[in-house]
C-alpha cells in the first residue's frame, strides 16, 4: 500500500503543490488531474523516488521509500515521458533486456505474445529506431505489463496511441487493478477507464 | 631449393610480404562468398515463406 503524507514539491522557486496526502490500496487506482505545468509529472517522479520532495513522506506499507530503496523498486514500474528503449535493439530484445535489468527473467515467447496483444508483433524484429511514435510507446508499455509489479506509475501513457491501442491499454490497466494491483496515472485525454475503485486528485490551477 | 626460399636471409621479409598479400586477398574473397551465400539463403527462405502464405 502506497501512502503519502503532507507531500510538497518545488521546482526552481515555484511551489507546485503542498500538503498533499493520499493513499493507494491494492485494487485501487489514482488518477492525477491538472492542467499543463501543474506538477503531475513531478508528483509521479516523486512517487518513484526520482525527485526528492521538499517536505512530507512517501511510504510503502508504512516504511519510507527512501529507506526501502531496492525493496520498494521491486514493487514499482514507472512509465515516463521517455520510452527507455535502445534504438539499436529490436523490440523483442529491448523488452527482454529491459526486464533483465529490472531483475525479471521472462521467456521470449511471453514477450512475443504481449507485443502481439499490443498490436506490434511486426515490430519485434525491427530496430526500435525505425518505429513510429506510437509503435515505440507500445513496445515500452509491453515491458511494464510483463514486469509483474503491483504498482504501476504511468505518466500520460495514452499519448501517441491510436484509438485501438488506447482501448487495449485501458482494458489492461483495468484488469491489473481489478486483480489487486495499483495504478497511478495522468492523462489529458478523455479515456474511459471502467473502474469503480478510482480516486481522483486535482493539482494546481492553470498556468 | 631451400637456399632459394631463404631469399638470401631475407625470407621473413619477402615471404612475409607475399604471405600477407595472399592472406588478405584470400580472406576478402572468402568473406565475400560467405556474404553472398547468406543473403541468397535468407532470400530464398523469405520467398518460400511468402509463397506458402499466399498459397
Amino acid at each position: 500500500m502506497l501512502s503519502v503524507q503532507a507531500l510538497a514539491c518545488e521546482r526552481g522557486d515555484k511551489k507546485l503543490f503542498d500538503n498533499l496526502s493520499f493513499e493507494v490500496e491494492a485494487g485501487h487506482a489514482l488518477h492525477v488531474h491538472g492542467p499543463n505545468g501543474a506538477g503531475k509529472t513531478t508528483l509521479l517522479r516523486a512517487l518513484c523516488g526520482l525527485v526528492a520532495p521538499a517536505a512530507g513522506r512517501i511510504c510503502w506499507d508504512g516504511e519510507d521509500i527512501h529507506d526501502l530503496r531496492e525493496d520498494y523498486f521491486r514493487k514499482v514500474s514507472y512509465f515516463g515521458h521517455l520510452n527507455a528503449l535502445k534504438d539499436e535493439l529490436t523490440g523483442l530484445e529491448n523488452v527482454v533486456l529491459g526486464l533483465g535489468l529490472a531483475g525479471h527473467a521472462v521467456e521470449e515467447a511471453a514477450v512475443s505474445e504481449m507485443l502481439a496483444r499490443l498490436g506490434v508483433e511486426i515490430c519485434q524484429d525491427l530496430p526500435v529506431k525505425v518505429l513510429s511514435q506510437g509503435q515505440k510507446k507500445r513496445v515500452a508499455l509491453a515491458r511494464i505489463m510483463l514486469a509483474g509489479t503491483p504498482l504501476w506509475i504511468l505518466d500520460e501513457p495514452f499519448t501517441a496511441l491510436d484509438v485501438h491501442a488506447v482501448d487495449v491499454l485501458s482494458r489492461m490497466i483495468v484488469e491489473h487493478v481489478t486483480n489487486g494491483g495499483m495504478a497511478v496515472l495522468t492523462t489529458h485525454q478523455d479515456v474511459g477507464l471502467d473502474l469503480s475503485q478510482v480516486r481522483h486528485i486535482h493539482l494546481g490551477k492553470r498556468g | 631449393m631451400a637456399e632459394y626460399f631463404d631469399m638470401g636471409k631475407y625470407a621473413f621479409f619477402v615471404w612475409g610480404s607475399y604471405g600477407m598479400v595472399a592472406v588478405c586477398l584470400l580472406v576478402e574473397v572468402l568473406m565475400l562468398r560467405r556474404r553472398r551465400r547468406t543473403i541468397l539463403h535468407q532470400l530464398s527462405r523469405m520467398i518460400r515463406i511468402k509463397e506458402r502464405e499466399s498459397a
Partner: protein
Amino acid sequence: MSINWFKYSSPASFYPLAGSMIPWFTAAAVLFGLVGLYVSFFVAPLADWQQGQSYKIMFIHVPAAWMSMFIYVVMAFWAIVGMIFKTRLSFMMGSALAPTGAIFAFLGLWTGALWGKPTWGTYWVWDARLTSQLILFFLYIGYIALASAIEDPRRADRATGLLAIVGVVNVPIIYFSVKWWSTLHQGSSINFNPAGADQRALSMTDSMFVAMLLMTFCFWCYTIAVALYRVRCEMVEREKNNDWVQDLVKSGDA
C-alpha cells in the same frame, strides 16, 4: 555501334552483365598473377646489387601502392557521376571499391614496412610518401566507418559520395604538404631519397619492369572482379523486395 549506357545503369540489367564479366576478370587476374609471379621469381635477376633478394618485395609493393591511390580516385569519380546523374548504381560501384582499396592501402604499408627493415634498417620512417600513404589508409577507414554507421542505403550513398569527393580534393593537398614538410627537416638518420628510388625504377632491367607491370594488371583485374562481385551482393541486399531479384532467386540464376 552504339551502346545504350543508361540501360545498364539500372540494377536489373546491370546485374546479369556484371555476372557475366566476373569470370573473365577472375581468369585474367589468375593468369596475370601466375605469369607475373613466374617472371618475378625466376626470370628477373635473383638479387638487386644493392638490396639483395629483398627487392623482390617491389613486385607487389609498387602495384599495391599504385592501386590504393588509383582506387580512391575511381571512387570519387563514381561519386561525382552519381551526384550528377542521380544513378544509384554509380554510388554502389564507388562503395564496392572501398574495402578493396583499403586492403591495398594496408598492403602497401605492410610490404613497404617489411621492405624498409632490410633496406633502411627500420620498419617505418616519417617520409612524405609513407606518411601520405598512411593518411590515405585512414581516409579509406573513415569512408568505410561512415558507410557502416549509416543504415539507410540512400543516405549512406550520398554521404559517402560527398566524403569521397572532399577526400579526393584533399589527397593531393595532403601529399604536397607532407612532402614539403619532411624535406624541410629531413632527419639525418634517414638516408633514403625518394628521387633515387625513381631513378632506380627507370633504370630497372626489362624483366623487372615486366614483372611489375604484370602484377599490376593482376591486381587491377582482381579489383574489378571483386568490386563487381560486391556490387552484386549489395544489389541483392538492397532490392530484395523487388520482383527482379525474387525472380532471379526463384529461377536459381542469382
